[in-house]
């Protein structure tokens, strides 16, 4: 029996998701809004990176469905629930989560990283690397069976991925015919796949990215329950599990910060540009003041304060997950409150320009109120700037999380995040042999996410920015 738990961040994610879906729904028939997005999705880079981002977002969403398990009933007492909050992703990754070793082990290792004193085969004590409890535990003769087993399982997994691709892709292709992704299939070709892969461009980029993702997924599904594909960390947790869990934290910081920042940037930036005069002076003063404080220091100061407050009111949070969740939200809030100045300045300049244009002047001459002018005439005309800034900022925020966690003002130390993974592993490079896998995994997962986000952002900017069209 389980009981769903809605953490604050989950609620905000749902809100965000809901509003994105709502916006898409509203914009679906608006050619002016659809055009740029179609341009993004028609571009091979845009389509490929969108797919990668979708996979990350999918993992993050799965990790946002939280629940607690019901403990076995005891007679005469009310139902008790476990204090440990889990997510749907935890459930999917149960074998990974439960295969905990004693300490470090290298990727695909079958032995522990450190030597231990054990009983020898003929009695007596010897010091040797003990076999892992889970990694490769199913192998009877580790030396002989290791490679055949890995190759067989890996091969089968990739085969599964390939089959899935062959099934899914044509179906998906047919389903989306004529819509967002115009298929290049012509009636002459028998197989729908061949022309797609040969012609290059959009469909093939999509297809190849999908193939790569499915192959990788197949490989991991086949191998991860039996081996620690990316090794284990200091307390023996599977690094692949940690990396997958870190994704939610990174995405949250990137998206919720935006959610906090947007109201400030939009209202203050547009108001400053549109009204001018006193209001402009006050708002300019506000953002110059905020800007003049060194960013990291302001964030550090605010996080320190929040930390003290959370510690002082420990009784408000009944689970560790709830506490680290509040701290994460506080971090997003702080990043948002300190980070709106850049966008606000852009919007102010744009509003300053727009308010002199004929359509705004006409609206004013017709006696349209300020509120209506701001909402109906200015806001839609600065949305491209907002979107561009949001996607551009996203990758920076994911990277910032790692740095802030290192400084000690990031997410809760108990929370699984890229920053905490790096922080926990960076001193281990001094060991012999080097413990590199935890660092490598964190950097790799982060790199793929940030690279995809950066490339996607470039495409969005290309499509939305009137200045960049025609320039190559």
């Amino acid at each position, binding site marked *: 029996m389980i009981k769903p738990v809605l953490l604050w961040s989950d609620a905000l994610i749902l809100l965000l998701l809901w509003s994105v879906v709502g916006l898409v729904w509203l914009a679906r028939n608006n050619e002016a809004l659809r055009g740029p997005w179609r341009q993004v999705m028609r571009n091979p880079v845009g389509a490929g990176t969108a797919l990668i981002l979708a996979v990350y977002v999918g993992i993050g969403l799965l990790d946002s469905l939280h629940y607690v398990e019901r403990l076995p009933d005891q007679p005469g007492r009310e139902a008790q629930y476990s204090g440990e909050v889990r997510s749907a992703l935890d459930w999917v990754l149960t074998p990974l989560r439960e295969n905990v070793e004693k300490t470090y082990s290298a990727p695909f290792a079958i032995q522990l990283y450190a030597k231990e004193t054990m009983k020898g085969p003929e009695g007596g004590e010897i010091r040797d690397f003990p076999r892992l409890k889970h990694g490769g535990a199913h192998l009877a003769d580790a030396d002989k069976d290791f490679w055949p087993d890995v190759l067989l399982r890996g091969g089968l997994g990739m085969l599964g991925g390939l089959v899935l691709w062959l099934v899914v892709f044509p179906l998906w292709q047919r389903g989306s015919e004529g819509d967002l992704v115009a298929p290049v299939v012509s009636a002459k070709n028998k197989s729908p796949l061949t022309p797609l892969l040969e012609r290059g461009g959009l469909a093939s980029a999509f297809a190849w990215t999908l193939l790569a993702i499915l192959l990788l997924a197949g490989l991991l599904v086949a191998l991860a329950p039996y081996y620690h594909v990316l090794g284990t960390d200091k307390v023996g947790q599977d690094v692949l599990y940690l990396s997958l869990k870190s994704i939610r934290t990174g995405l949250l910081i990137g998206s919720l910060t935006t959610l906090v920042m947007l109201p400030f940037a939009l209202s203050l930036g547009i108001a400053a540009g549109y009204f001018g005069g006193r209001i402009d002076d006050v708002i300019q003063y506000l953002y110059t003041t905020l800007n003049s404080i060194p960013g990291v220091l302001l964030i550090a100061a605010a996080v320190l304060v929040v930390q003290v407050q959370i510690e002082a009111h420990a009784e408000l949070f009944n689970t560790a997950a709830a506490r680290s969740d509040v701290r994460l939200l506080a971090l997003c809030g702080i990043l948002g409150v300190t980070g709106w100045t850049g966008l606000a300045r852009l919007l102010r300049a744009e509003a300053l320009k727009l308010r002199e244009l004929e359509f705004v002047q006409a609206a004013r001459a017709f006696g349209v109120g300020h509120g209506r002018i701001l909402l109906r005439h200015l806001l839609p005309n600065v949305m491209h700037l907002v979107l561009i800034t949001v996607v551009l900022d996203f990758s920076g925020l994911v990277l910032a999380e790692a740095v802030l966690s290192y400084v000690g003002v990031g997410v809760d130390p108990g929370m699984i995040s*890229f920053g905490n993974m790096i922080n926990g592993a960076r001193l281990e490079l001094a060991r012999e042999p080097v413990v590199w896998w935890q660092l490598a995994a964190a950097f790799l997962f982060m790199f793929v996410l940030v690279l995809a986000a950066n490339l996607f952002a*470039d495409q969005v900017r290309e499509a939305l920015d009137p200045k960049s069209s025609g320039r190559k």
Partner: protein
Amino acid sequence: MLNYLIRRVLYAIPILLGVNLLTFALFFMVNTPDDMARIHLGAKHVTADAISRWKSEHGYDKPLFFNDAATGVAKAADTLFVEKSLKLFALDFGAADDGRDIAREIKTRMWPSLAIALPTFLIGLLAYISFALLLVFFRGTRLDTAGVVLCVALMSISGLFYVIGGQYLMGKLWHWFPISGYQPGLDAWKFLLMPVLVSVVASIGDSSRFYRALFYEEIAKDYVRTARAKGLSELRVLFRHVLGNAMIPILTGVVVVLPRLFMGSLIIESFFGIPGLGSYTIDAIQAQDFAIVRSMVFLGSLLYIFGLVLTDISYTLVDPRVRLE
């Protein structure tokens, strides 16, 4: 010019006052001195007596804004706001929570910070602009595309990776430099080279792309076409005309950070064990020493505003059309 400077200084006062109020609100009102005392005493030793003793030892035993106990001017003057916040205007930083004089620490620690930040800044600027000009020179070719892809890839790598990777390769594997540490005097270069190198490489992707975009915008303008039409060589067009005209946007981003170089870099200094202001700040953050954090926030804002003024002055040097009236 003088008029302008005076006006700028006057304009800086409300901003600094705002910074002051903001930090004061954060550190004294959201987070009361009682909270501070509790952190420093540790959970075991928290008693009402101990808290008030700690507060009087560190000078936190005063009211926030109004002192009802005092008379006359002291009513407003003998308060935490005046003691801890307004005194910063006179660059009187007071003592850290561990009792040491903050101003003296700043004076000794700014030199190592500067020794890293200044070379990083100069070498970096040179490297990024040259790389960007190179890409612009080969614009439209495969080399340009490859360069941009490289930039995007480089800027997608976490800054921590450069530091950790650099330390591992150059320090541990190749034994080129000591992994961390610092030595005053001429021997310092051994310890400085790696951090400088790492920080230059770490932002090469971001910055080069920025400058490339900047030059691109410039190169589409009419005067460039005119210059080419008159038969000037591409190199001369790039270096003399494009670079010269791009100076204003370059200076906008560059000069403002100049004064802040004193404060060093948090990450680089703490990773490489440089006893500069950056590592001082990070230690203070980790030890929750709010007195130091507050001083650094104020110093940072002061230097930023100074940088803004310098930026305006630098415009007059590169662009004769700009006059400060």
